[in-house]
């Protein structure tokens, strides 16, 4: 069949189009495009069905595993698709590795090296036990993350845009340094012993729970990552869709209870809002996909996405619904926005 490719402005992207087998898959098409254009390897390509101009619906993105035939709307011999270049891509593994490497290296630098000399403090300083435990806790956390990246996680999309490397590294490395500066400061004031133990103890339990959540998520998919989306079940997933984010958030809370710095709590608030956004999106996606029709199971109605209160605040501040909107305040049955029951 003949495939015509246009750019989003309507210009023909490959002159004359491409000729493929009737039984070809989208992946085959991507290979053919790559062969012709050299520059655009498959993970850089975004192929969508054209939407009628003026229509505000989101374009359908082609799935690389499906047959091209599945997207032909009646006319089996030709197909017109819209091409978008997603820019240089890196694998998620690469992205995560560099993000997490920063905190793993920068934090110990503040602990071990006489960094504070450059801020005008004397070299001699007393190191409190909590500062040492915080170092171990922090480094274990990021070491765990790196291990999970290489040995546990099964990613649904193989790649991420290169620009995300700079953005994400800036986030992790800046916050890592910001927190490390205060926890390892020569004038650091430790909290009481009991508070420290409660904080780290709770944090460790949550990190273990978080690891178990990752194992559960991994088992939902096959090794080549082709499992797509499944309904997670068991453990905390029976209560929240993104139990992995929930345990991660509480794990940071444990760290902050033990170390008590404004920097750490600021990081907690920012990280919580980011993860809550992701959790809301994933929760909505799963609810939409698992609608109970065509043999698909129905997504359990009683689940929240991660933490109900923060969802409301995040959703309204993200502009999803202005604060004056009645939908936000009237109690809705079984929805992620009902703040009444779950704070």
């Amino acid at each position, binding site marked *: 069949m003949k495939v015509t490719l246009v750019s989003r402005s309507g210009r023909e992207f490959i002159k004359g189009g491409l000729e493929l087998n009737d039984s070809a898959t989208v992946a085959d098409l991507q290979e053919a495009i790559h062969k012709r254009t050299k520059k655009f390897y498959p993970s850089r390509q975004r192929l969508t069905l054209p939407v009628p101009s003026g229509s505000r619906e989101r374009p359908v993105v082609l799935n690389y595993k499906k047959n091209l035939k599945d997207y032909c709307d009646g006319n089996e011999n030709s197909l017109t698709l819209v091409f978008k270049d997603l820019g240089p891509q890196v694998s998620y593994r690469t992205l995560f590795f560099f993000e997490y490497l920063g905190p793993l290296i920068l934090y110990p630098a503040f602990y071990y090296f006489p960094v504070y000399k450059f801020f005008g403090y004397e070299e001699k300083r007393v190191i409190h036990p909590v500062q040492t435990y915080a170092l171990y806790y922090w480094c274990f956390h990021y070491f765990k993350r790196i291990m999970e990246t290489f040995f546990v996680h099964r990613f649904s999309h193989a790649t991420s845009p290169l620009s995300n490397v700079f953005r994400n590294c800036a986030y992790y490395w800046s916050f890592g340094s910001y927190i490390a500066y*205060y*926890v390892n400061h020569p004038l650091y*004031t430790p909290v009481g012993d009991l508070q420290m133990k409660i904080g780290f103890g709770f944090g460790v339990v949550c990190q273990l729970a978080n690891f178990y959540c990752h194992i559960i998520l991994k088992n939902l998919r096959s090794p080549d990552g082709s499992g797509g989306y499944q309904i997670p079940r068991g453990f905390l997933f029976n209560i929240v869709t993104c139990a992995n984010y929930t345990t991660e958030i509480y794990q940071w809370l444990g760290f902050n209870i033990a*170390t*008590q710095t*404004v920097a750490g709590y600021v990081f907690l608030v920012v990280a919580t809002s980011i993860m809550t956004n992701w959790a809301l999106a994933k929760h909505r996606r799963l609810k939409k996909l698992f609608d109970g029709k065509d043999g698909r199971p129905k997504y359990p109605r009683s689940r929240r996405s991660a933490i109900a209160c923060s969802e409301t605040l995040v959703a309204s501040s993200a502009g999803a619904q*202005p604060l*004056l909107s009645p939908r936000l305040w009237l109690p809705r049955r079984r929805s992620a926005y009902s703040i009444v029951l779950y704070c």
Partner: protein
Amino acid sequence: MASAFTVLRRLYLSVYNWIVFIGWFQVLFLALKTLKESGHEQLYNAVEKPLLLAQSAAVLEILHGLIGLVRSPVSSTLPQIGSRLYLTWGILWSFPEIRTHVLVTSLVISWAITEIIRYSFFGMKEAFGFAPSWHLWLRYSTFLVLYPTGISSEVGLIYFTLPYIKASEKYCIRMPNKWNFSFDYLYAAILALGIYVPGSPHMYRYMLGQRKRALSKSKKE
């Protein structure tokens, strides 16, 4: 479609815009009067009260955007109002030593002209439903000159205040403390200066885009 809510909204916004307009008009009037009679060193003292009031009232605009009363995205009003409030309270009000600087004059006049045009423009639209085309043109053209003069004045004033910030230790929080937190107002000021580097071209380009949209839209009508 004149529901009670729409009428109330228009009434409130008309009152708001016209009152703040009067505030800025006062600022400009007193500024020019003082320049003629006494000189630029006295300008701040003459305009202080209406300036503090009119500029602080702008905080309400963030609220308006948040609750959906106006369409402006919070993302563009926040940096604009943030820098204004920082200059007004964080620099001019906090450090009297800088008030006699000549840049205060260029700052106040740039701000006042911009705001007089802007608030009367919105006041017209809310109260009467329209604004004459010359008014639209002024609203979307004067920034071409006033943004550079205003921004240069802001940057200059922050820069010249730095020695006073360093000497006074004002707004600084030092360690040790229970929350293991520190804040150095000097470094915050230097950071603010840094933000102007990408921030100013961004705001200018945003206004250029707004100008294109607004002036071409009026041509079509």
